[in-house]
């Protein structure tokens, strides 16, 4: 059983009187420790695919299974309970400090403040932005913002990380570092699913897929991959 499984998932959008099929019976399986990149042009549906895979949006047809359970069954809330999801947002509130941002989700779930602070600090160190912890979120550049967004999900110990366009808006020379961070997260055993509009992550992913006209192309299952992920190979997995 794969960690995440999309079974013949379809999703429609309406534009005025028109009904547009954004995903056409897309199937996809991802195992623990895999980094999977989905390339697509703008408006190809890549963000929709990721939102559906993370359980943020329900599919109009088909099933999304996480650890064998249907993500869209009533009462299922995998977001924050095994799945972390990041997407680019335009403009961030500038008032709160980075460490407060990362702690916020934990505090909302009743984690004691000192414990939340400590977990947030560790997550910021893990993604390489610990020196920014006291800065206001609005002071960060795009690469730092993405790292902090990843830290916000890491504090919950996700087994699957879904990141929509991790290198969007990131300076050319900083993109490699973001991809290498994602690679190291996958090497530590987390399944990582990313969308890609600029090709940054395609070569370092275990599997690269393309999405166009609603169709997902490429090796959609780990069995079809030529690269065996560490978790599947039984190799020693260590956090980088």
């Amino acid at each position, binding site marked *: 059983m794969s960690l995440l499984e999309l079974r013949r998932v379809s999703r429609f959008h309406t534009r005025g009187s028109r009904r547009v099929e954004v995903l056409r019976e897309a199937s996809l399986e991802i195992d623990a420790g895999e980094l999977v990149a989905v*390339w697509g*042009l703008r408006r190809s549906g890549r963000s929709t695919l990721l939102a559906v895979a993370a359980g943020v949006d329900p599919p109009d047809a088909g099933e999304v299974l996480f650890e064998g359970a249907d993500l869209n069954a009533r009462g299922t809330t995998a977001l924050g309970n095994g799945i972390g999801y990041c997407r680019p947002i335009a403009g961030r509130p500038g008032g709160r400090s980075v460490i407060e941002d990362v702690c916020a989700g934990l505090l909302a779930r009743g984690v004691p403040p000192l414990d939340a602070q400590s977990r947030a600090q560790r997550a910021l160190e893990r993604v390489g932005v610990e020196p920014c912890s006291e800065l206001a979120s609005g002071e960060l550049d795009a690469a730092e913002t993405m790292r902090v967004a990843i830290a916000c999900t890491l504090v919950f110990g996700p087994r699957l990380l879904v990141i929509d366009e991790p290198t969007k808006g990131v300076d050319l020379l900083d993109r*490699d570092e973001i*991809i*290498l961070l994602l690679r190291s997260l996958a090497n530590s055993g987390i399944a990582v699913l990313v969308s*890609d*509009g*600029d*090709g*940054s992550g*395609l*070569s*370092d992913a275990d*599997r*690269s*897929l*393309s999405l*166009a*006209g609603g169709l997902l*192309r*490429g*090796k959609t299952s780990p069995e079809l991959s*030529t*690269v065996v992920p560490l978790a599947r190979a039984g190799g020693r997995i260590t956090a980088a």
Partner: protein
Amino acid sequence: MQAESDYSFALMGGRVKSERSLPMRSTVNWTVLGLVIEHSSYGFELWKRYEREYGDMAPNVSGSNIYAALNVLKDKGLIEERVETRKAPDGAARLRKSHYRATQEGLVAYEGWVIAQAREHDRRSRQFARQLGAFERQPQIALAILERYGQACLDDKDARIPTTAQFPSPVTPELGDQLASAYGREVKAATLGWIEYARRKFEALASKETPLP
């Protein structure tokens, strides 16, 4: 700048007057010249660097190929050799070691060759795109080719980001490795975009196809 004009003359196929002005076609020779420009060095080190940086693209190049290339480059005045002599550890004999560095003429020639290579690469890519147009009346064949090409493009791992972990200590990724990998990633995204464009064109043609009577 006399050197540059002499060299250009040879490249353009002008009348050959001397060995020095004969055009150099061997990719190995040009690659070795690039390595010498990158770091002036000794024959053995250049050979090892060739294997590490270009071994995957141009395998089966032996040490004698590298020394032959160095001789050609020296004869053409593109590099110069400095022989160093040292006492052997036993003090009995003297060791001779050749150190190579690029000349100004070599630098200018290499610059011209690199640009010519990039143009040739572009020309071949456009040629492939044009040749696919031959399937205008058989769009299904073109779509099958595009499917396979797209899959190969997605599966290609050659443009991985070079990391220190991939290189034996104390060697770190060279600038050339980083540039090659970044180029590969940018080209991959552009190629996937082009494949999608071509696919839509041929799908449109396929939808208009009428069955043979």
